[in-house]
């Protein structure tokens, strides 16, 4: 373990992590640390914000930076105040699908609309993991969870498409089986001016896999690879053909006016200089 190159980015006194065996959270933490490393970001310039859930534990308390572990669903709203106060820092939210797209979905939409310069890594494991595997707004149609014992009768939210439509500067979706693309996108999200979302489809073999014939992490990763369709190819496919598929790729990458810069423009315009 002492040979692990990313250890310097972690609060070693709180290791090992609480993640279950095979959890995708470790991959996300590792790739995020590598992104920070490759970009040469000083962790003193990072503020990590998370909500409540297993995925919210990926940065907090493990990542050695300023870390704000907030209430369920609200990390993006907390991060909004932080970014206004510290416009020169990297403000990063890492949290789960239930947290960010379920209970906190409104904040996700409006932060994207404002295009505030926050990077969000949304870890989508199709389930409310921490509370024991209840259905989430991302659970596939028909899937078994502890609260859909007869199969899920609701349709999952397409988070990446929704956030792109809401106005984000950058949106990409990858699975934990695409670590290099994920790394590239997280680096892009960190450096992009404006709201950036990286949706990571991640395995939860314990709460999701085992109830859905995907017993282990390797089973789930193989399922991700088999079911993934690159965005370019997906655009030529019908909705029926895309049913149950995971569309991966960059959904949007554009320049758009950023919120905190605009706020500061107002101040520069009306600020009273008494001297």
């Amino acid at each position, binding site marked *: 373990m002492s040979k692990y190159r990313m250890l310097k980015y972690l609060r070693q006194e709180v290791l090992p992590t609480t993640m279950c065996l095979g959890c995708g959270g470790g991959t996300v933490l590792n790739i995020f640390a590598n992104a920070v490393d490759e970009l040469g970001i000083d962790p003193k310039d990072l503020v990590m914000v998370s909500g409540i859930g297993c995925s919210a534990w990926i940065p907090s308390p493990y990542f050695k930076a*300023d870390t704000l572990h907030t209430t369920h669903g609200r990390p993006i709203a*907390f991060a909004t105040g932080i970014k206004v106060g510290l416009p020169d820092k990297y403000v990063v939210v890492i949290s789960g699908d239930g947290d960010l797209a379920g209970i906190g979905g409104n904040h996700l939409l409006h932060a994207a609309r404002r295009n505030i310069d926050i990077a969000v890594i949304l870890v989508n494991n199709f389930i409310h993991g921490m509370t024991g595997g209840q259905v989430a707004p991302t659970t596939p149609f028909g899937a078994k969870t502890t609260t859909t014992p007869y199969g899920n009768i609701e349709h999952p939210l397409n988070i990446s498409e929704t956030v792109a439509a809401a106005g984000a500067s950058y949106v990409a979706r990858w699975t934990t089986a695409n670590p290099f693309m994920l790394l590239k996108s997280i680096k892009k999200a960190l450096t992009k001016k404006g709201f950036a979302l990286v949706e990571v489809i991640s395995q939860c073999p314990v709460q999701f896999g085992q109830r859905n014939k995907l017993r282990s992490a390797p089973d789930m990763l193989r399922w991700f690879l088999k079911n993934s369709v690159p965005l370019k190819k997906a655009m030529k496919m019908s909705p029926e053909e895309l049913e149950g598929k995971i569309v991966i790729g960059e959904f949007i990458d554009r320049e758009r006016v950023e919120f905190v810069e605009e706020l500061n423009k107002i101040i520069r315009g009306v600020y009273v200089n008494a001297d």
Partner: protein
Amino acid sequence: MNRSVLRKLYPKGNYFMQGDEAIAYGAIFAGCKFYAGYPITPASEIAETMARELPKVGGYYVQMEDEIGSIAAIIGASWTGLKSMTATSGPGFSLMQENIGYAIMTETPIVVVDVQRSGPSTGQATKGAQGDFFQARWGTHGDHPAIAISPSSVEECFWTTIDAFNLSEKFRMPIIILADGIIGHMREQIRIPDPEEVEVIERRLPQNEEEAKLPFGGDLIPPMPIFGRGYFTHVTGSTHKETGMRDVYTPSVHDKLVRRLHEKIEKHKKEIVKWEEKFTDDAEILVVSWGVSAKPSLCAVLRARSEGIKAGFFRLKTVHPFPSERISKLSKKVRAIIVPEMNLGQLIIEVQRFVNDDVRLIGVNKIGGVPITSEEVYNAIKEVV
């Protein structure tokens, strides 16, 4: 806060304004630099004033998507070192409760204004009320301390808000201002002071890395290692050790933390709790009131006095913590206590806990949105003479 900027923008002198506006100006004089909110009657004028004035002093106004986001944003901003405030009314105040608990647990200085309106639910949206007395105390879950202060005039809205910021910075906790729709919308003359006359307290920051290591312990009120300074501060609403690291399994860690949160208020109660009293030395009948109901109460007491009735007046400025010792002491000398308030009896429950059984306790309670009149309080006094 640059005093010369304030002087230039708001020269000292008399102004005519609403209570809501006075709250906004009080915040600016206290050094508020970040406001996040969501529109709601009768608090919207606070947001509108902040949106217009804050940028002039280099501050930020953000309109959030709801009240949960608003309080979340001000807590986040406070951790960057900005003095922060939000304002709302009953429905929004209810939505904020979870994060008020978060601010208490994470010892984050913020100011939350509740311009009370008639409830429950949407109730009479445009009408003032005093129904949130206990929500301000016990709205969020779990054992927790609370500080709530309540202005009785437009001028006091200004000074109460400055007090709220100073208390929040000093004790590292959320302070609630319980205004109401009547005072919030009422216009009165107020005197804006020279910034020199305003005492402004700033939070204690760590002076070195060593001091930053115990953001949640060591001292009764620890220094706050705000973000962006390289301290690697860890903040969580879960039970945590003095370092900030989560420990939800050790009973003594929780016990120590939550008791300290209470103790920092308990130990400073004398300094925190403020009230106003008149004619209490020889009073046989005491009128105890707060907020908008205090004015008619004082008028009634003055009228009774002019008729030789030994009535006294007591107004809570701080409603939580409750001035229990003083009320208890005064109650030993009086026959009756009258409690006028625009609700069906909330402050009176608190008063009751601290008075002897032989004191007659009478509520003057009015709901529906129309303020209590001095006549109504006077009649209650006459009844017990």
